[in-house]
């Protein structure tokens, strides 16, 4: 059974002149334990796919299944125990007036897990798991660096021990040295806990490092699906992907004049 199975996902925002067809007929499956990448430029619909999966977009239509269960309408409590999300900007996704402890305890309270002592124990264990010491427990987000904040955001997502983690550009707000730490942490956690990831990024190198398979998106459509080996060999089938790959490999004055616009 696939961890995630999406058939003909469509997302349309607005109507009339304002109508935006953000995701067009997207279908893919992710096996348990796999890391699946969605890569594309801004406005390609990659984050919208992720948000549709979590139920943050009521306009989504199509057939989505996770861990065998069909996803329709408002997601129930059980769904959020299995599926959690890490957002792009750790400066915006943590409550500025809540301590790390309050942020990490909240999911447990909502789901009625453990008593006070049990919750404290889980928070401390989770802090250790994401590489933060117990001294971070009562700090506020403004007392943390960007990398530490993203560790807290990852810890929050893991508090309910989900089986699927949806990652929306988890390192694009971080310096490269900190990005390395966070990517290493995500890889280690996946291995330990046997998690399934869907990773959205505009950075092909990050996708290549983390994922086994990936889909390239442009203007709401899947341009192509490929394995990471195909990406590494530099043998995409579609011209769009080849151009994206060329642009990602650094500046080359001559090649830039040949860039085309893809509709």
């Amino acid at each position, binding site marked *: 059974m696939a961890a995630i199975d999406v058939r003909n996902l469509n997302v349309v925002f607005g109507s009339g002149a304002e109508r935006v067809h953000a995701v067009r007929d997207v279908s893919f499956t992710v096996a348990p334990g796999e890391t699946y990448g969605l890569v594309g430029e801004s406005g390609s619909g990659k984050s919208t796919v992720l948000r549709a999966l979590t139920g943050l977009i009521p306009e989504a239509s199509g057939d989505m299944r996770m861990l065998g269960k069909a996803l329709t309408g408002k997601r129930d409590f059980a769904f959020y125990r299995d599926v959690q999300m890490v957002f792009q900007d750790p400066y915006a996704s943590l409550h500025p007036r809540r301590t790390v402890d309050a942020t990490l305890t909240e999911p447990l309270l909502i789901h009625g897990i453990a008593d006070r002592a049990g919750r404290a124990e889980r928070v401390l264990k989770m802090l250790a798991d994401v590489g933060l010491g117990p001294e971070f427990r009562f700090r506020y987000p403004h007392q943390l660096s960007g990398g530490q904040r993203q560790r807290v955001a990852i810890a929050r997502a893991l508090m309910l021990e989900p089986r699927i983690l949806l990652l929306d550009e988890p390192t694009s707000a971080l310096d490269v040295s900190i*990005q390395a730490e966070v990517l290493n942490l995500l890889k280690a956690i996946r291995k330990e806990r046997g998690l399934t990831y869907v990773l959205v990024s505009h950075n092909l190198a990050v996708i290549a490092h983390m994922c086994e398979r990936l889909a390239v998106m442009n203007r709401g459509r899947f341009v192509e699906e490929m394995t990471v080996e195909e990406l590494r060999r530099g043998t995409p089938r579609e011209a769009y992907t080849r151009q994206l790959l060329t642009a*990602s490999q650094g500046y080359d004055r001559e090649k830039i004049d040949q860039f085309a616009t893809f509709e």
Partner: protein
Amino acid sequence: MSSEKAPLLEIENLYVDFHGRTRITHAVRGLSLTMGREKIGIVGESGSGKSVTGRAILKLIRPPGVVRAQKLVFDGIDIMSADERTMRGIRGARASMIMQDPKYSLNPVMRVGDQIAEAYVMHKKVSGRQARERTLAMLEAVKIRDPERVCRAYPHELSGGMGQRVMIAMMLIPEPDLLIADEPTSALDVTVSMQILAIMDDLVSQRGMGLLFISHDLNLVASFCDKVVIMYAGRIMEVCEAAKLHEAQHPYTRGLLASLPRIDEARETLEVLKRDPAWLDDGLKEGA
């Protein structure tokens, strides 16, 4: 334009300090750099002092910031002793800076087209119509699809990427001798960003502009610039030929390079940068 032999920009022992209530932050500590009409990249992590260096060159550091330097000369003009009037003649016309964040750098209550034309009209003494034509052409050059519409728009009606391109158009129109570009393409898609770098590159090779390119992207700088300056905590760690960045010697540079994920190579874990306090040793005492 002065003689081609004199360097465009000479900096010797630049210090920038910010005086806070309880402590002084040393943002730049003894930076020296000479550049001609070439592309120099300044690379470093956030907080390494690269943007502050760019601002200091245009004398844009305001109190409580304090700038000290043995020498800060742009094309024969001593910036350290230049008054505001002289600086206004330089900024925008002869040397300009593309700021990182268009949200805070564009005037929110002025139409985009008028903002772009402003510096051009002010410094070049051209008619409004000429300025308008030039503005439209420049917006097209930075790959804006509907320049007429964008000209009439206010900054809040544009996306981050469009705003950044508007900034770039604004700074390139007066054809400055020195362009300081602070992360000019960080909000743009990689293909668009390459096309905009190509515009700047052509200005350097065809018009002899000097480009100081501030970035956190090592691979981009290595492929785009002639020389790379690596900064850490306000100091220059190393200067190397861009093409030879991958042979860099300094452990900090090596650490940064090793921490980058790569498309062409599978690695189980990425190397994590280990910071050595010894990198911070020199520099502070002699200037303070």
